[in-house]
């Protein structure tokens, strides 16, 4: 019988030690591991080096909670809802150490980490100033075969990766059917991988649709069931963006009530969060926008 890797969300602190480097999955406003982020906030797991490529409210809330020592990123944004308020303030105040890396290079860095390589080459990124301000990520190299000048991208190997998926079995075989950002590579690059899932299923359900299994169980260390675990970001095909909640967060922070929002998150269980943030109407709306957002026929 396959190993049972299922643990409750409340056990996340035993998997993420303070001071760890933590890679967060998701991209843009899609599929960030928000339930896991909320648990880190509840348990005040701090002094973290957060690694997130196209980050959003996930990173902003961890910074707001004072849990981030260092951030490696290519973007932190609330997109239409504005600048990420706590990220912005922390960098402006000089309280957060940042390693800013271009987005494709972030993917290459995780790919290098996943392959057990110290770096991978890519062609240049033009006359960007990022290699000057983040010298630890980039190095000019010469191709040993052609002599071309290339850019070496240093590998990233987070101590822990937190990735949210649609469904997983107890052995960690994890399926995604919507945007997955760079999650498969992050998952392979990490020294420890924790998967949160919308639902736990049996192995037969996984085997019925193996093309969706982007993360196989043998690289997974722990599985946590977390319905609406990406909320308020999207988890396609289950639910769309809770833009109303993202806007409320931006508004609250803009009015100086960021600390209140974080205190509330820290004071409740994940079940309590779902009861408060996701009443019946809201669940229906989020599921409906994911199901019915119109495509345009070309005929």
């Amino acid at each position, binding site marked *: 019988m396959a190993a049972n890797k299922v643990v409750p969300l409340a056990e996340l602190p035993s998997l993420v030690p303070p001071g760890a480097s933590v890679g967060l999955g998701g991209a843009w*406003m*899609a599929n960030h591991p928000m339930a896991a982020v909320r648990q880190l906030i509840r348990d005040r797991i701090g002094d973290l080096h957060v690694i997130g490529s196209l980050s959003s409210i996930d990173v902003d809330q961890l910074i707001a909670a004072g849990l981030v020592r260092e951030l490696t990123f290519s973007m932190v944004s609330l997109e239409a809802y504005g*600048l990420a308020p706590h990220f912005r303030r922390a960098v402006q105040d000089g309280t957060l150490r940042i390693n800013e890396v271009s987005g494709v290079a972030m993917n290459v860095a995780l790919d290098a980490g996943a392959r057990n390589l110290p770096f991978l080459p890519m062609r240049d990124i033009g006359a960007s100033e990022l290699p000057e301000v983040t010298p630890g990520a980039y190095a000019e190299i010469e191709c040993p075969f052609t002599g071309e000048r290339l850019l070496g991208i240093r590998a990233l190997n987070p101590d822990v990766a937190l990735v949210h998926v649609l469904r997983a079995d107890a052995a960690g075989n994890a399926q995604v059917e919507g945007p*997955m950002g760079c999650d*498969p590579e992050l998952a392979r690059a990490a020294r420890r991988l924790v998967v949160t899932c919308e639902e736990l299923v049996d192995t037969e359900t996984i085997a019925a649709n193996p093309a969706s299994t982007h993360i196989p169980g043998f690289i997974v260390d722990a599985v946590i069931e977390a319905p609406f675990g990406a909320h308020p970001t999207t988890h396609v095909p289950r639910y769309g963006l809770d833009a109303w909640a993202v806007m409320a967060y931006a508004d609250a922070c803009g009015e100086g009530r960021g600390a209140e929002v974080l205190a509330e998150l820290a004071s409740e269980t994940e079940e309590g969060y779902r009861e408060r943030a996701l009443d019946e109407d809201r669940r229906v709306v989020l599921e409906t926008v994911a199901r019915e957002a119109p*495509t345009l026929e070309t005929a």
Partner: protein
Amino acid sequence: MTEYRIEELMVCRIASEVDDSGVTVLGSFTPLAYASYMLAKLTHARDAYLVGFNAIGMPPVELNLTGTEAAAYRGALARWSFLTTTQTVHLGKRGLVECVSPAQIDGTGAFNLACIGDYAHPKVRMPGGAGSPEVVQHYERILVYFGRHDRRTLVEQVSFRTGQRAPLSAEERRRRGLLAGPVRIITPLAVLIKDDDERPFRIESLNPGVAAEQVVENTGFELEVPADIPTTAEPTADQVALLRERIDPHGTTRFDFLDAQERKQMLRDLLQDEWDRALAASRVAAR
């Protein structure tokens, strides 16, 4: 003559760069660019591949704030991770055109998505460039668009070079294994183009009713002003109808043309509408 708004003219100009040969990627929230890609896909570029949030070959979708990713995935032909997309499209020389909408650009084509003021001690820290440095360096055609054309946006020198296409000459780019093509800036006043490292941006076309002096006056860097400058093509009645009735019936492409307060009000209104529509649709589905 067809009545149109300035954002519709810009959408049509951007759409004209998308053709059947290429791959166009949708990344961060840039509704004006999204509308352009959908318009191309519904008219002259039906065989172009749109890639939205790594949904490969996504169908054209109606623009909205909450369901665009879901719609993109529903009709997509493949679902990749971001690494596979960027290896294949960005680094693999398959990127035809992608828009960037930064905070600043200067006369070298360098643009800024990082900060206003000193990088280490910024006055305003912005989101960062995501994949834009690689996009502007590796795609065939680069379009940078702005909702306003002034000296705070088109500046003498950017505070930070998030990205910059280099070099610009076709011959030198091909020698380095890169696709060749110009950088264009699309604004409410004009289209500017640069394809030579040694020469400044040139006014390629003036939007209807705009004088060259007005463009020069509102640009913080040197411009080449040809003696005869064509007028940017105006949208056709069909294009305007497609945009208003099908692609962007809720008007999200106005977003980049509003100030902060107006944006907030627009988002509130759009979200109220989306909430009401979703609840109504769920009741229909439940019957």
